[in-house]
């Protein structure tokens, strides 16, 4: 039974937001549960069935080693979503801490923000490439590199918000009551900065999927044979002429997933934005 507030929330969220939520749920379900129902192996090489175009036996066709593309897209999605999820979590945690420190410890603010500027003077993908250049191409390192890349963006946002909130009457009241800084941060500043953090976090989830795919495409992402959407595209690059479907489906999945994430992020933002009633 859906109660009144929940129904109102759904209405505010808009049909696009709901649709994208449904889409994301569907993709996650397909990736997590798909392998149970779709028993083809993502890594099994069947030379006699190589480069078959999409058909009823292989819904997305097969690749140059006769591996089933649908099975690989599902397995690859597993990796892409895992990378995106961890990157988002670590970025939110580290970025929030740094942002709060910068917003509250005035002596550190200037230097922290200039360091953030320097990191942001390099395009996200380029910085991630540089970080991957000096580390082994593994899933953990990709998560680390992407987290480093996004932290300044999160830190800037939280810092800006913290600067606003610390001037609020309720923070002044808490200060007057003798609350410790840590208490003020956790009880007042963080909860009030949460909407923005959630919104940026949802966008970072999307960026991470895109950038992980880019890194893999350029050959510095999680290494094969374990499929990821990006390294599938990298392998399929030279087969555009003969087997476009190998390139098409992983890219399509990236697009749909990120689109759904972005629309969801927009929905959350509109939900918290008082000006939305325009």
């Amino acid at each position: 039974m859906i109660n009144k507030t929940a129904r109102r929330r759904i209405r505010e969220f808009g049909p696009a937001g709901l649709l994208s939520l449904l889409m994301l749920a569907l993709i996650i379900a397909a990736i997590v549960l798909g392998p149970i129902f779709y028993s083809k192996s993502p890594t099994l090489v069947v030379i006699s069935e190589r480069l078959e175009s999409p058909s009823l036996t292989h819904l997305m066709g097969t690749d140059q080693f006769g591996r089933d593309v649908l099975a690989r897209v599902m397995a690859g999605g597993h990796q892409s979503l895992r990378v995106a999820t961890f990157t988002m979590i670590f970025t939110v945690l580290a970025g929030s801490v740094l942002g709060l420190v910068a917003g509250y410890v005035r002596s550190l603010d200037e230097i922290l923000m200039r360091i953030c500027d320097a990191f942001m003077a390099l395009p996200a993908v380029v910085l991630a490439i540089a970080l991957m250049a000096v580390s082994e191409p593994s899933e953990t390192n990709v998560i680390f590199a992407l987290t480093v890349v996004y932290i300044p963006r999160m830190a800037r946002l939280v810092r800006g918000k913290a600067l606003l909130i610390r001037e609020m009457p309720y923070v002044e009241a808490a200060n007057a009551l003798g609350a410790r800084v840590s208490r003020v941060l956790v009880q007042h500043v963080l909860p009030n900065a949460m909407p923005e953090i959630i919104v940026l976090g949802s966008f970072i989830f999307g960026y991470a999927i895109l950038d992980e795919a880019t890194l893999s495409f350029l050959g510095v992402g999680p290494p094969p044979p374990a499929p990821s959407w990006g390294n599938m595209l990298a392998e399929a690059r030279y087969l555009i002429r003969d087997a476009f479907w190998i390139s098409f489906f992983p890219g399509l999945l990236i697009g749909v997933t990120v689109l759904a994430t972005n629309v969801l992020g927009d929905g959350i933002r509109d939900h918290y934005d008082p000006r939305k009633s325009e």
Partner: protein
Amino acid sequence: MARFLASRLLSMVFVLWMVTVIAFLVIRLAPGDPSAMMLGSDATPQAVEQFRASYGLNRPIIVQYFAWLSHVVRGDLGTSIYLGRPVTTAIVERLPVSFVLTLAAFLIAVVFGVSLGIAAAYWRDSWIDRTVSGAAALGLAMPSFWLGICLIYLFAVRWPILPSGGFIAPWTDPWGSLQHLLLPAFALGYLQVGLLARMTRASMLETLRADYVRVARSKGVGEFRVVTKHAFRNALIPVLTVAGISLAVLFGGAVVIETVFTLPGVGRLLITSVVRRDYPVVQGALLVIAAWYVVINILVDFLYTVSDPRIRLRGHD
């Protein structure tokens, strides 16, 4: 105004200096040693030692940094380990390719972004408006390299009317250059078309509602003139900012697109050097990409200050 620009300039110099620190540290702290890469795993310890000495890899890291920096500020980015040539020469040779690609993408972004944004604002909630915002959302969700792959498939394989890669300089063969640039520039610029269209639309919606637009209409000014002159001119400043940002980021985005379309630019050099662990080149390319970003930002700030008197008075933020 001079003080504002000076303070911006100073903070930009600081940012650039920080970038040199990052570029240096990231590469120097790497676990893999270039000597192992260059000499192979069965090199004698003496050979490794000699290699390390000749590239200064055996000195303390601070000394290495300042030695490197003193060369960098003089335009000397060191010697490529793999190419055996000065990094500066290798980069300068490839810069025109990246510049041409970036500018072509920028041109596409501005022309399509602004005109589509104006159309979307003028015919608000029409099919044009919906198509533009849908296409913009797609641009944010699609990897640019996948768009590039799809374009290659459509226009070089399915209907072979354009080349699938390679570069021809516009000053040697303008027509051939245009053909080679069309797909990569579109793949690179697409995302920015969407962002610019969004910004133009939002800004135009404000000015189209403004009193001076109503006044212009009631004076009998033609509709086209009202939109382009009265409404668009006043909507320009936020659009300029987004255009500036897109010019700054397109250069970095070229890294990926150059790889897809095998264009011999700085981005491709960066990627191949990453694979070869050719650290001096990686550092050099990083610095050039960051320098472009910082310089464009200064220029945008300058334009901004000149075009909007309110900013002159505000001081730095």
